[in-house]
């Protein structure tokens, strides 16, 4: 009986941090990050595949479409992108991968080159931050592994522009008051 309690206690020590880590911290909000490869059409001889690094399981590999949009993953996934020569890419094996085969083995057999790493699908921002969504744009270079986007487009709450006006108006009024006092 005591052993069972001890095992349950130890188990809960592992489970509780995982459970709380999945919650949104107070005062913050989750923002989606759309990731896009801008020059995917420059590599017609290659197939691009994305995969979640958090346990490269059977279901984590996904084909990146010609639009260059990298599929969304679970927020704790550190996504990588691999380039595979079309001649070495086995479509049938890739389709079966979702059922049975091992993703790591598939990437090794296809001689996949990692071209992007540490891609995030979402981020946590302070509530005070007006960013609604983020679009990261990557330019692929087959000879290097990039971990930072080439450019970033942030969509902000339109009322944010009203927020920018506040300090400008305040400064104008301060200057006017000080000038008036000097006269």
């Amino acid at each position, binding site marked *: 009986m005591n052993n069972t309690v001890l095992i349950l206690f130890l188990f809960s020590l592992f489970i509780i941090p995982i459970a709380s880590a999945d919650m949104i911290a107070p005062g913050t*909000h989750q923002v989606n990050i759309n990731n896009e490869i801008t020059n995917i059409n420059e590599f017609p001889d290659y197939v691009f595949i994305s995969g979640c690094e958090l346990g490269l399981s059977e279901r984590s590999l996904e084909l990146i479409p010609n639009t260059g949009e990298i599929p969304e993953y679970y927020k704790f996934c550190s996504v990588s992108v691999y380039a595979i020569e079309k001649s070495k890419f086995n479509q049938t094996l890739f389709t079966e991968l979702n059922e049975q085969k091992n993703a790591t083995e598939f990437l090794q057999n296809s001689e996949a080159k990692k071209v992007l790493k540490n891609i995030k699908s979402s981020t946590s*921002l*302070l*509530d*005070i*931050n*007006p*960013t*609604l969504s983020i679009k990261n744009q990557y330019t692929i270079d087959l000879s290097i592994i990039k971990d930072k986007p080439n450019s970033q487009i942030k969509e902000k*709450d339109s*009322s*944010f522009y*009203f*927020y*920018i006006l*506040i*300090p400008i*108006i*305040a*400064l104008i*009024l*301060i200057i006017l*008051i*000080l000038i008036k*006092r000097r006269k």
Partner: protein
Amino acid sequence: MIIAVPLITLALTIIIEFIVYLIAIRKNICNLFLSAVLINSFTNPLANIIANNNLMNLIAVELGVFIVEIFLIKYMLQIKYWKAIAISFIANFVTIFIMFFT
């Protein structure tokens, strides 16, 4: 609407700093309130924009606000420099303290 949160933060900062001005100066309440509104409407949104876009470290931003407010308080409230420094320090210390510990 996300903008509601910064506006509430601004309003709270104005109220807190107005109370600090009031305790320190105790006269011409309308001028104190107007000064609190204008000074914080200038510094607070700018500080939030800079800090949230990772343009500067939060401590550096707060230090910048403290310095800018010394001059604004000095000229808006027409007081001596040492008093403006003390008020700016206390007002910003109180708001930072509330921000971190609530």
